[in-house]
């Protein structure tokens, strides 16, 4: 009964958000927006304070779930920069997560290659970020000239290539068997071991750092360029925005954030194999971003919590016997359904960013043709730069 009640309450929350924000939520937002300068640190501190304090109440199993939510939230924030801010649909995002995880595993000498030096988590961290950013630029350089659907499918292809290469390069990645015995993180000369609590807090710390960095980037020249590219790339180009450069930035920053997630993941779980980097992870993270609200950091965190906690609650369904098991199989399908429903009724997400909401609704009025809208909006150039 409990999982069902929990499910019902979560659905209630979703609907409360969906329909409440027109009036009450709107007023709260207005209040916040007017005092953004000093409200942000307050909200920020309160948010992280609450989540850090949670560790005193939660048992080990809950903390494991908390860690899962944490690194997923980190990934979602990174993907949000690419999809939400710059408007580039990346379906191969998991590749950067994989790059981070494999960098950690290989450079810490857990893989088949033995390096002559001995590096710990904190030394590998900056290296991994740089490697991921370079990978982002290498993948992005040629592909970011493409648009929309084509970019999505090319990134999907790259994501799969990275996974299959990891699976086939036996000498470097141990192939399908994966790499075991990745070293745990050491802090102040002490290994953190297997206890999930410090990893949870560490992930929370990385989320905080990423949130501040991404926020200041988004409020800078870079963020304005991203908005311009997202809203109308041709116009942005015409106004002198070096679009490729800023798109590469978005890709590189997204890659950096994902690689941090991957490195923490590898060091916590100590075992990685190609299956951990399947396409479904990319779609999972994308669901979190879309569900929460494209372009809204608070939104994607809500999304990350939802997509990880909901299936965990559904796990209780297995008590219901065969029907429960079937429902368990259905949980990805439920996400799928939620994605479709969100796109139909609320494409801007649960906690929308104002700007995105305006964009996604604004387009609707203009393209409603006399036939009731025959085609998707902006039947854009199908690919390639002109």
């Amino acid at each position, binding site marked *: 009964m409990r999982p069902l009640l929990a499910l019902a309450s979560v659905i209630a929350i979703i609907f409360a958000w969906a329909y409440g924000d027109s009036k009450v939520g709107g007023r709260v937002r207005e209040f916040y927006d007017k005092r953004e300068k000093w409200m942000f640190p307050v909200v920020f501190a309160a948010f992280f304070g609450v989540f850090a304090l949670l560790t005193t109440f939660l048992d080990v199993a809950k903390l494991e779930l908390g860690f899962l939510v944490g690194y997923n939230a980190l990934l979602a924030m990174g993907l949000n920069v690419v999809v939400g801010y710059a408007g580039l649909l990346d379906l191969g995002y998991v590749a950067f997560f994989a790059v981070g995880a494999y960098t950690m595993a290989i450079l810490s000498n857990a893989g088949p290659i033995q390096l002559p030096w001995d590096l710990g988590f904190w030394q590998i961290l900056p290296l991994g970020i740089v490697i991921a950013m370079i990978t982002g630029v290498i993948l992005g350089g040629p*592909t970011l000239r493409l648009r929309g659907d084509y970019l999505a499918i090319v990134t999907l292809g790259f994501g799969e290539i990275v996974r299959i290469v990891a699976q086939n390069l036996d000498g470097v990645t141990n192939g399908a068997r994966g790499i075991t015995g990745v070293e745990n993180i050491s802090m102040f000369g002490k290994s953190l071991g297997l206890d999930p609590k410090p990893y949870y807090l560490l992930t929370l710390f990385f989320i905080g750092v990423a949130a501040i960095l991404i926020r200041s980037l988004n409020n800078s020249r870079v963020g304005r360029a991203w908005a311009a590219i997202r809203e109308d790339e041709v116009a942005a180009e015409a106004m002198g925005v070096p679009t490729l450069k800023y798109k590469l930035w978005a890709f590189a920053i997204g890659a950096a954030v994902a690689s941090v997630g991957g490195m923490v993941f590898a060091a916590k779980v100590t075992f990685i194999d190609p299956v951990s980097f399947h396409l479904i992870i990319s779609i999972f993270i994308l*669901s979190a971003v879309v569900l929460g609200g494209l372009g809204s950091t608070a939104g994607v965190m809500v999304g990350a919590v939802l997509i990880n906690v909901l299936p965990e609650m559904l796990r209780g369904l297995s008590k219901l016997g065969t029907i429960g098991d079937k429902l368990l199989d259905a949980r990805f399908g439920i996400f799928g359904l939620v994605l479709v429903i969100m796109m139909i009724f609320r494409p801007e997400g649960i906690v929308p960013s104002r700007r995105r909401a305006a964009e996604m609704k604004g387009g609707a009025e203009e393209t409603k043709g006399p036939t009731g809208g025959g085609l998707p*909006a902006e039947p854009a150039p199908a690919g390639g730069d002109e």
Partner: protein
Amino acid sequence: MGIASECITSDLPLRMVGGLTTGSIYALIALGYTLVYGVLRLINFAHSEVFAAGTFGGLITLNLIAGDGGNAFHLIVAAIPAILASAAVAVALERGAYRPLRRHGASRLSFLISAIGASLFMQSIYLIWRGRSFEQFPETIPIRPLIEIGRVQISTVDIIVFIAMIVMVVGLDFLVQRTRIGKGIRAVAQDAETASMMGVNIDRVVTWTFIIGGALAGVAALLWGLRFPTRFDVGFLPGIKAFTAAVLGGIGNIRGALLGGLTLGLIENVGAGCFGDAWKDVIAFTVLVLVLLFRPTGILGEDVVEGKA
């Protein structure tokens, strides 16, 4: 050096035959992507589930009528439910995931996400229904070599797949060029707004486009079953490769889908001979990336109207 010499072994012709056979199946699926793209300027990412539905339609019928060994007649009978299943799923997709978005002119990103969602949803329905294990189709056509020229063996299955593909493509050409609904499809592809002002019912044309694309995928699914097993996520790889084929030939272009499918099948199979079977999918994805980078409009260019079937 080693690689080059391995490529040009006596295996090459054999691999080319295999390549044309899988290529024919890719081509049939690719036509579905191309038709929908031509009419809606939209990549139907959930088309792989349309294909999967066809495999299940065919599998269930064959299990019923040819449980322990069948013949070509059973195969033809099984084509009907395969086609119906695929077409039904295609129409359901259009109604459920795309039409509501078209109604309020959603952004392209919304269409894509909706398609991914619909795809996940369909897959989990297949999963609940059929479970996780691979299911082999009952044998209808024996995979026995029919023609042998030296070391090249061409089996009955290869020939049937190729002929079925040609028949379907010729049929599609007739449909698009000679029938009323085909005229509608061409009109909407050329200019949807003008077509609707001239009295073309766009929703009807779109529905028909999905039905035709679905039917082709259904045939492809049955042909797939001659060689390979099926399960809930069977659509993913052929789906994405068919998409690659469609882009390779020039998406929106019917001849392009045919050419792209066969070319991709050949490249993939011959390439696998050079680098090993484990790299087959990487070869296909690399082709996709390279085509999009250097010639995003594909070999034949992107045009439904001009590039006649």
